[in-house]
């Protein structure tokens, strides 16, 4: 039974083809030349949440529950083209699933011919909804990036701090905001970007190191650690130097590495710090003097008390005591303590040099006289002892 055998084989092939078509990832429709849906595969019904009977036997151009009017019009137009054998481009349609969920599908039509006769139209449907979501996500990301870029541009251009971008490997300025242009005294950004960090730094930094050497160390540190904040002496185009703080921040744009430098002129801050330091020094000096003077005053008061006590002593007792020892102590105190203290402290006062010199000269006379007096009183003590 060769004919039967052939029929069985054909049935088997047909069955296999149906399986292949059902297992395609893309939706598949076979449509008659009149627009009637002859067959659909499983992928298509899965795509739309339909069952085959929802579609098979229906006119593809009347599926208003699935496609919009605009979509149906496009289907009809492409269908006519397909009937004419005009190869159509793939086109995208918005469709709805059975549950009403919007989908985006990509459609392509092909005409099937046999012996010069048009038989049917094969429609392949590809669900691109997921891709569209990704595209939407991508567009959203791009919008966020653009928005961030716009915000950065606004910050960059309106910042009161001087901001500049340095590009490796030479670390020249490739961009600078208005504050940077103004800070360094450039006419415009073009003039500014013709400069390198070495053009806006003096030869040496305050610690004596070469600016060129030290700047490399600072850049390396910023690259290694992500950022680096330090004080730096810069100079303007007119060579005027000024103290500044610099914040170097590593910035990656795409795959390229840059450094953003934020420079702040701290001249006024330094002046205020210096004024504060001078004030503290002055207060410390004053405090030292006051403490020294207070100690001397205590000593002096003790001496006065002693003198008063001596004056109050009966004559006989006073004569019995070695009266000149007090004078020796008094003069010695002046030579070794009070006079010397005054002499050393004069340098700490804000006086003109001539004034200081004159005061010191007169204080030395007092000290020398006191030393002489001390010796004379010591002689008198010996003389008194000898008399006894």
């Amino acid at each position, binding site marked *: 039974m060769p004919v039967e055998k052939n029929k069985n084989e054909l049935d088997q092939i047909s069955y296999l083809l149906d399986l292949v078509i059902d297992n395609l990832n893309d939706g598949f429709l076979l449509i008659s030349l009149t627009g009637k849906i002859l067959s659909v595969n499983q992928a298509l019904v899965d795509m739309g949440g339909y069952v085959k009977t929802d579609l098979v036997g229906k006119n593809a151009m009347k599926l208003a529950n699935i496609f919009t009017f605009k979509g149906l019009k496009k289907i009809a137009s492409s269908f006519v083209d397909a009937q004419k054998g005009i190869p159509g481009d793939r086109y995208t349609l918005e469709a709805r699933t059975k549950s009403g969920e919007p989908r985006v599908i990509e459609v392509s039509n092909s005409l099937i011919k046999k012996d010069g006769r048009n038989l049917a139209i094969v429609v392949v449907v590809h669900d691109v909804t997921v891709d569209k979501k990704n595209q939407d996500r991508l567009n959203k990301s791009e919008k966020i990036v653009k928005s961030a870029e716009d915000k950065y541009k606004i910050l960059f251009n309106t910042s009161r701090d001087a901001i500049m971008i340095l590009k490796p490997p030479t670390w020249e300025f490739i961009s600078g905001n208005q504050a940077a242009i103004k800070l360094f005294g450039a006419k415009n950004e073009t003039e500014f970007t013709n400069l390198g960090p070495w053009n806006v730094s003096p030869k040496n930094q305050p610690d004596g190191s070469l600016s060129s050497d030290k700047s490399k160390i600072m850049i390396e540190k910023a690259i290694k650690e992500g950022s680096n904040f330090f004080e730096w002496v810069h100079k303007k185009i007119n060579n005027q130097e000024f103290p500044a703080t610099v914040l170097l921040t590593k910035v990656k744009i795409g795959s390229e590495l840059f450094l953003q430098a934020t420079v702040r002129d701290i001249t006024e801050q330094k002046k205020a710090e210096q004024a504060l330091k001078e004030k503290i020094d002055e207060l410390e000096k004053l405090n030292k003097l006051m403490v020294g*003077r207070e100690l001397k005053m205590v000593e002096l008061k003790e001496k006065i008390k002693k*003198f008063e006590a*001596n004056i109050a002593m009966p*004559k006989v007792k006073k*004569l019995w005591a070695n009266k000149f020892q007090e004078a020796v102590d008094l003069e010695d105190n002046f030579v070794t303590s009070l006079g010397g203290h005054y002499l050393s402290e004069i340098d700490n006062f*804000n006086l003109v040099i001539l004034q200081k010199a004159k*005061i010191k000269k007169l204080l030395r006379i007092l000290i020398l006289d006191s030393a002489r007096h001390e010796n004379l009183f010591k*002689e*008198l003590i010996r003389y*008194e002892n000898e008399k006894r």
Partner: protein
Amino acid sequence: MKNDREILIKMFDDLYLWEKQAKDLYDDYLKTLKDKKEVEIIRGIRDDELRHMQIVKNLHNLVE
């Protein structure tokens, strides 16, 4: 500076007091001493103290 001047003036006032106390002490010695040699030496010292008081006054005036 005002603070410096005030401190110096106070310092010299203290110094003047110191010298005056010394002069007063030596005046006191002179009231009781009989020995001519002692009187002569202490008078000289006391006169020095008077001169010192004048010097300190001058210092005061110099910075005032």
